[in-house]
């Protein structure tokens, strides 16, 4: 399709680029000024500096990349004179923001994603909307992001110390991590978590995968009712599951101790593992049935046709194809157990204290900064899990011939 281009002279946008950039500069200047004890000077200097920067960059540096670099370097040098190393970092950041903003305004980028016929009100709303969304994303991610630097705090505080803000190496330390790996209050729960979660996952994945295959057959009497029962552990609030299990498992435990002569510690693990595996089952069922929806049934028939028995067909044909679904279901089950507090709090005894349980007690009673180190480790852990699940999902879609979304 031929595109019709009309050469219209680009209007100069300096008229509002400079005032707007000055406003942004004033805001940032206010923050910097507050840090240095004189907000008023900060506002004035910030506004003048931002206006000048915008003017110089837009008029004399046509290449954006170079312009941004210049802005960052200039502001960083200024920052270095005000507050040494931390000033350098903050200055570079502010310079980047201001120069990016200047180009964004002056080159008309702010209209890039709206149709050309949009009125200026619509453009304003569109960009406001983007800022609102950005703030919501910030709300989603900021609490998790804040925890990470705080976990390196050299003090036992839950807030940024002046040394940390000055990027002084003395303000940071790994002592909370050291506590996490050496204190038995934390290492024992960690061990327990790594005993309970994998075992619970194995139970829920093996039983769940079998049942999902059964459920995906064409004729299953009472499929809806069965599905409802199997999904119910996810629907019933945890506190209710925990209440029911508390009564039931204490009876079960007494019976096992009395009649089978098992040790109390062992029974405790059995109870928690059973409880956790039942909580993980809905996730396995949901992910595996979702994978089986796109499964080509003629493949198993072809295998049978060529003389493979049902077991061989399952392991050689069906299993490799649904494996991504099984693994991501298993990861869900694992994280459910690994992250679970309420049920283990009610069903387990002190011997089965898991990591979340220890965190819960820590948060409720004496809040120790080691929790933040643990939290950071867990965040890293969940990033790895998230990446794995995402890769598996894409692989599964590719295997089933669905286009990646």
């Amino acid at each position, binding site marked *: 399709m031929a595109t019709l281009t009309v050469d219209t002279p680009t209007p100069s946008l300096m008229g509002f680029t400079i005032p707007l950039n000055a406003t942004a500069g004033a805001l940032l200047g206010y923050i910097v000024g507050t840090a240095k004890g004189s907000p008023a000077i900060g506002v004035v200097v910030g506004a003048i500096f931002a206006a000048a920067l915008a003017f110089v960059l837009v008029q004399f540096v046509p290449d954006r990349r170079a312009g941004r670099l210049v802005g960052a370097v200039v502001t960083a040098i200024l920052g270095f004179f005000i507050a040494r190393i931390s000033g350098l970092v903050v200055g570079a950041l502010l310079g980047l923001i201001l120069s990016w903003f200047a180009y964004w305004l002056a080159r008309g980028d702010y209209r890039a994603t709206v149709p050309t016929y949009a009125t200026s009100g619509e453009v304003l709303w569109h960009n406001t909307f983007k800022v609102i969304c950005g703030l919501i994303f910030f709300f989603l991610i900021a609490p998790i992001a*804040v925890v990470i630097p705080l976990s390196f705090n050299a003090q036992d505080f839950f807030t940024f110390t002046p040394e940390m803000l000055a990027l002084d190496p003395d303000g940071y330390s790994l002592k909370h991590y050291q506590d996490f790996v050496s204190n038995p209050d934390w290492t024992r729960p960690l061990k327990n978590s790594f005993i309970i979660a994998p075992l619970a996952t194995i139970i829920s994945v093996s039983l769940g995968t079998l049942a999902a295959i*059964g459920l995906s057959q064409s004729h299953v009497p009472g499929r809806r009712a069965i599905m409802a*029962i199997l999904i119910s552990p996810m629907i019933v609030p945890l*506190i*209710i599951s925990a209440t029911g*299990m*508390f009564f039931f498992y204490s009876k079960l435990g007494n019976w096992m101790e009395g009649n089978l002569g098992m040790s109390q510690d062992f029974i405790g693990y059995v109870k928690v593992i059973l409880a956790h595996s039942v909580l993980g089952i809905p996730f396995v069922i949901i992910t595996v049935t979702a994978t089986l929806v796109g499964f080509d049934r003629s493949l198993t028939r072809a295998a049978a046709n060529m003389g493979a028995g049902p077991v061989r067909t399952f392991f050689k044909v069906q299993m490799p194809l649904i494996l991504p679904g099984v693994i991501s279901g298993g990861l869900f089950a694992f994280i459910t157990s690994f992250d679970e507090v309420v049920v283990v709090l009610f069903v387990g005894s002190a011997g089965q204290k898991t990591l979340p349980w220890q965190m819960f007690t820590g*948060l409720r009673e004496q809040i120790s900064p080691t929790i933040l180190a643990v*939290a950071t480790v867990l965040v890293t852990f969940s990033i790895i899990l998230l990446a794995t699940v995402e890769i598996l999902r894409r692989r599964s879609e590719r295997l089933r011939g669905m286009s990646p979304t």
Partner: protein
Amino acid sequence: MSDTTQNGPMRAADGTPLKKSLARALRRQKLRALALIAPLLIFVLVTFIAPIADMLFRSVQNDIVADTLPRTVVALKDWDSTSGESPGEEVFSALAVDFQAAAEQKIHTKLGSRLNYENPGISSLFRKTGRGAEDIGDAFMDQFVDANAAWKDSETWAGLMGSDEWLAEQAEWVAAKAEGVKEPKFRLRDGIADALPRTSSTYATFARDTQSGTKSLVKTKPWPVFFVALAQDLATASPEVIASVSGDGAALLQEAAATAAGFEPFDYKAAFTDIDKGWDNVGNWITVQSYSARYTPGYFLNAVDLEKSPDGIQARPEQQQIYIKLFVRTMWMSMLITGCCLLLGYPVAWILANLRASTANVLMILVLLPFWTSLLVRTSAWKVLLQQQGVINDILVWLGLVDDGNRLVMINNQFGTIVAMTHILLPFMILPLYSVMKTVPPAYLRAAKSLGATPWTAFWRVYFPQSVPGIGAGSILCFILAIGYYITPELVGGTQGVFISNRIAFHISSSLNWGLAAALGTILLGAVLLLYYVYDKIVGIDNVKLG
């Protein structure tokens, strides 16, 4: 070859009619599917559905009164609670035996704390009586023992009450002294139940309770109430009946009959009211009588701030009404949290659904990362942020927006619960909204605009109605998750920001009122199942997607 004539049924290769053969194949297929599902179904039924059913059962179960005070409960059946007088001698004599047995096993305090849920203060009555009840009948015992020291010995009583065969077996057991072998089960002597009805039934209770432990009947001290019962029996029984009693104790009994003739009749009621005046209080007896049934609606009534009284069901006193308020607060706050999630989730879902796929995928990570991050990590993050000495307050003070002296209180109140739970549940709103918005063709909006609609009309009349299923799915999901939340309100909610689930946990682990916890749980479960049913109707449980 099978013969297929034109009129005959169609046949399969092996000669069976095709219809039958197909039906068999279908049946086999069904059985195979069920066999694959069966292990998991059984597992879930046993480890999950059974505990829930057990909890439902526990919310109405009330065996403790009938088990601890069996005689009293029977005797109390005929008592008219509207008469305004405490029950008669019959009930008190039953109570004396029950209390003796209960105090021996130390279960009377449990009953006291059970009834205390319904009638605050009654537990001290039970505790106090438990200490005193063992002495009821002491005076009679002394008199009998004074007459003949043999009454003090448990062997005397066993010999009088036990049947000859039992006594023989018992003697053998004592001689054998085998480890781990229990004493032969006690059997009453023939005819003794007719001759000494009160004494024999009391003794039978004593024998049952003693033998349920590891103690031996002949080694356990007789209860003082035996002597009161014996005196009463001797006073009413005719001499011929007493003479008819066989066995070693017969002579002793004859002698005792003569002794007992001179005794004053025993006043049980006075004995109990001497221990504690509470036994003369009609209100306490009404409580015992109302909760003597094996199944009670009491826990449920309690869970909705009602109580049983002689005039029927009525509201509890003002200061004890907490549960309705808590349920309302749970609902209200869950709705508020769901509303906040919708408000924040809608724009994000919209922008994710309308951006280029590559950008949307990157932004999606920002939604999925909190979703995958441990609940406790997120809760502790909010605790760190919202504290008075926390990050947000520090920034506000630093910017000069808040004075250092009066930092904002943002935690341990409703605000803390709402903010933290909105953050935690937001991904559960965004994901269903996103999956619905993804299916709305963007051309519709452009079409509406080209037909002259303003952007707002185009959104409100064209786009929004199509996103309603997503709003429904996300809202119900968030709401279901919110009303059952425990951990976050417990950690950041203080006293004003807690939910009904925190109360359930409190009753399980601290107050030990398990029946009430079960009743509260049952009500909550009912609400969730109702919502779940609605969710299933709107979205369909098969359409739940993860990640």
